[in-house]
C-alpha cells in the first residue's frame, strides 16, 4: 500500500463505526423487547405516585428489570433535586 493510500484508508474505514453504533442500538432495542409488557404502565403509575410528593421530571426516573439466573430484579432509580 502506498504512502497516500494510508491517509485515504483512514478516512474511509467507517465499517467499524457502523458496527459499534449498531451493537449499542441493537442491545438497547433487545433489552426493551425483553422487558415485561406491564413495565411502561407501571413506570407511569410509579411516576404519578412520586410526583404527588416530589417534583421530578420523567428523565430523572429509571425503571428497569434485570434478569439474573433464578430471579428478576426490578430496579428503580430516582434522582431527587437538593
Amino acid at each position: 500500500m502506498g504512502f497516500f493510500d494510508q491517509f485515504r484508508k483512514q478516512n474511509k474505514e467507517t465499517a467499524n463505526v457502523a458496527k459499534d453504533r449498531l451493537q449499542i442500538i441493537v442491545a438497547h432495542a433487545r433489552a426493551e423487547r425483553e422487558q415485561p409488557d406491564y413495565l411502561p404502565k407501571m413506570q407511569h403509575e410509579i411516576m404519578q405516585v412520586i410526583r404527588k410528593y416530589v417534583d421530578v421530571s420523567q428523565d430523572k426516573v429509571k425503571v428497569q428489570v434485570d434478569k439474573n439466573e433464578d430471579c428478576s430484579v426490578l430496579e428503580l432509580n430516582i434522582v431527587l433535586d437538593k
Partner: protein
Amino acid sequence: MGKTTSSAAIGTGLALRGHKTVIIDFDIGLRNLDLIMGCERRVVYDFVNVIREEANLNQALIKDKRTENLFILPASQTRDKDALTYEGVEHILEELKKDFEFIVCDSPAGIETGAVMAMYFADEAIVTTNPEVSSVRDSDRILGILQSKSRAAEEGRTIKEHLLLTRYCPTRVENGEMLSVQDVEDILAVPLLGVIPESQAVLKASNTGVPVILDEESIAGQAYLDAVGRLIGDDIPHRFLSVEKKKGFFKRLVGAN
C-alpha cells in the same frame, strides 16, 4: 433489501431441486413478484380475489413457464389496507400445504399488515439484510417480531431463522468501508444461510424478468444456488466472501498459481 429478488431466486431454486413450490407475493398494493418472475402479463386473479372468494386458488395460481414444479400467487393492486385477514390467509396457506412442499412468502418491507401476515404463519424465516446500518437494525426488529408475535411464538415453538446477506462487496469490506459478514453475524446472531455478492446480474435479471438463480454463469446466481442447497440441508461452504486476487504480471509470466 432484495427480498423479492431473493424470494424469486429461492423459490425457483427449490423447484429446480424437484420440490413443488409456490411463491406468494404479500406486498398488497405494490405487487412486484410477477415482474421479477416475468409473468406480469399472465396475472388474472390474485391473492385478495381468492381471500374474497371471487376466484378459486387454481384460477389465481400462475404456473411458471421456465421451471417445472413452480407456481406464483400474485399480490393484489388494491389500496384496501385490510384486504388480508388472518382467517383468509390461514385458509389459503392450509389449502396450499396440501399440494406444495414449500410455500415461499415474499414479505413487503416494513411492519405493516402484509409483512405481519407473512411472518405470522412462518415455520422458517429468511431475513434478508444488506451490510448497511439501517438494514441491519430493521432486521433486528423483524427478528424481534418473529420471536414474539408469530403463531409459532404463541404456540411456544421457535421459528427457524436464517440470515441472507445481499449486495455484499468484498473489496469494500477489505477497505473497511462496509460491514463484514462476521460483523453482521455478530450483531444479529442468526445462522448464515448465504451471502449474495453485489452483481450486475441481479439488475439484468430483473430487467428481463428471469430469476437470477437461472443465470448460472453469474456469481449471484451461484450464491443463490448454494443458499438453496443449504436451506434443504446440504453442507456447502460459503463462497465469494473475499476479493478475487488478480494474477500479477510477474506471476502470469512465470505461470505460478
